[in-house]
């Protein structure tokens, strides 16, 4: 049975995925590769920032991104389930 909420759910999912992928691109390809020379002018302790993003920082951000995704998707799924069961109740 196709749910009425399918479209809304899918749109919210795509929005979430695209925004997370934007961050993914910015920290790895952006900070770690394209802008690395610029960021290297900033020093944090014994690290040049660009070098640190390329070899450490981007990996930490990747982990955060996946856990944000897990969290948001659980919420989205839950909302979908609730409105689907509301709909079934009202049609009975």
């Amino acid at each position, binding site marked *: 049975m*196709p749910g009425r909420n399918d479209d809304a759910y899918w749109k919210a999912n795509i929005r979430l995925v695209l925004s997370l992928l934007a961050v993914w691109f910015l920290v790895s390809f952006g900070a*770690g590769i394209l802008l690395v020379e610029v960021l290297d002018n900033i020093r944090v302790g014994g690290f040049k920032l660009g070098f640190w993003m390329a070899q450490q920082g981007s990996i930490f951000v990747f982990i955060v991104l*996946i856990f944000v995704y897990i969290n948001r998707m659980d919420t989205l799924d839950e909302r979908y389930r609730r409105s689907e069961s509301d709909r079934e109740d009202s049609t009975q």
Partner: protein
Amino acid sequence: MSVQFWTFLFVILTFGLYIGIAIWSRVRSTQDFYVAGKHVPPIANGMATAADWMSAASFISMAGLISFLGRDGAFYLMGWTGGYVLLALLLAPYLRKFGKFTVPDFIGDRYYSQTARLTAVFCAIVISFVYVCGQMQGAGIVFSRFLEVDIVYGVMIGMAIVFFYAVLGGMKGITYTQVAQYCVLIFAFMVPAIFISILMTGQAIPQIGFGSQLTESFGGGYLLDRLDGLSEQLGFPTYTEGQRSTQDVFFITAALMIGTAGLPHVIIRFFTVPHVRDARKSAGYALIFIAILYTTAPAVAAFARANLINTVDNVEYSAMPEWFSKWEATGLITFDDRNADGLIQYTGDAATNELEVNRDIMVLANPEIAELPNWVVALVAAGGLAAALSTAAGLLLVISSAVSHDLLKRAYMPEITEKEELRFARMSIFMAVLVAGYFGINPPAYVAQVVAFAFGLAAASFFPAIVMGIFNRRMNRHGAVAGMIAGFGFTALYIIFFRFVNPAVDNAENWLFGISPEGIGSVGALINLLVAWTVCRFTPEPPAEIQELVADIRRPEID
């Protein structure tokens, strides 16, 4: 007690553990054999994925590669971790929702075509075989160097162990041995790293030691500054600066990321969990477990590099410690006293350099170079074996399921019963172990090189086909098959041309847009997308039931 004693002890203990798990996890159904009955808890699946993913190359070679590449080593670090973001967001949950056993299952059903299924089977087998030969070879090398067992026997022992738990337990046996292997390999990698970090910087956490000041006995100052200084002084490229062109680093990183997300032995791990949300969670756990090693490796690379230079440069050859002659005997270190002054000159200038150091030394000999206790030195062997065997087992299962499930059950012999299919699955894993073992003992000269290209091929074939299958409802079989063939074909030809047909022109001037064969898989993936999209526009849209299948994959689970 000697290193040899400790090594034997660790190897025997860990192998005993793997065999115990194999006996405990025997299976009787194809569902258990292919996807561990879909009962694997996400955290266990995360560990198993991490062990599956981190191969002999990650464990033994990566830190060494980085210590010679300097900053450019980042393409391995970001490429092999960033792919998990793509996996978690774009593939894992949907493939789990689809709920079958293999990658060709998805491609064949989604694109309602035996041609698509067979193309996927072909790509999966080529990619996995290329990869598994490297693992067997890795296991053989560890045996021969640490236990002084002949490489042939080393490979055979490795084969026997993998054979035992893969044939008995299928995916279930493989999964739980991989959990144990993850624990062994991460312990073996972290203990020496922590020791060295404390020794050189006084910091127990290597990731912090990486950016800290060296202790007085190592000359003080920030580690990375000191390394840059040493590099310049000896004529090596500056450690924290890049050598390769920006676009090459960009495309290699992209190819490794997309390839990671397209490797069938990684993808099938997400079929083994009970629910869709567990698939997302296990991708997150997997990346944490992988990141523990991947954020430590660049620190180890820097420690080892600085330590090596400190130990050898301009020091008398006769005063070298014991490890030096031990590794010299294996040919991984070679010294040629060109100016006959009895001192070792280690420089970036080929004309005056007297020392050649194999990159694998950086992990294998690092504990000895840092004068760590014997039991720590011995851990490395058990860790290297765990890394090689866990990856080999995952790959062999892909080959076995591609043959028994996709090729026989779904394509040529649909009438076989489940029992017969299970027998074929075990037979094909047996055959695959033999073939892999043969190539492990007699490695074709190009195997080591080709392993890296498995990523390019996976990036150019599977990743686009699966992503389009989920995110583009209109994508049809004509488009997908044309795309896979174009992407795989282009990438394979580019690599074969530059690496085997005409290696003389393999340099940046002749490369397409300055992209090396390692990075060409990302262009292959783009070609795949473009060809698929174009062909799809001029051919009929997929039947209604396929469009409903896509809608169903996208819909959340209602449990």
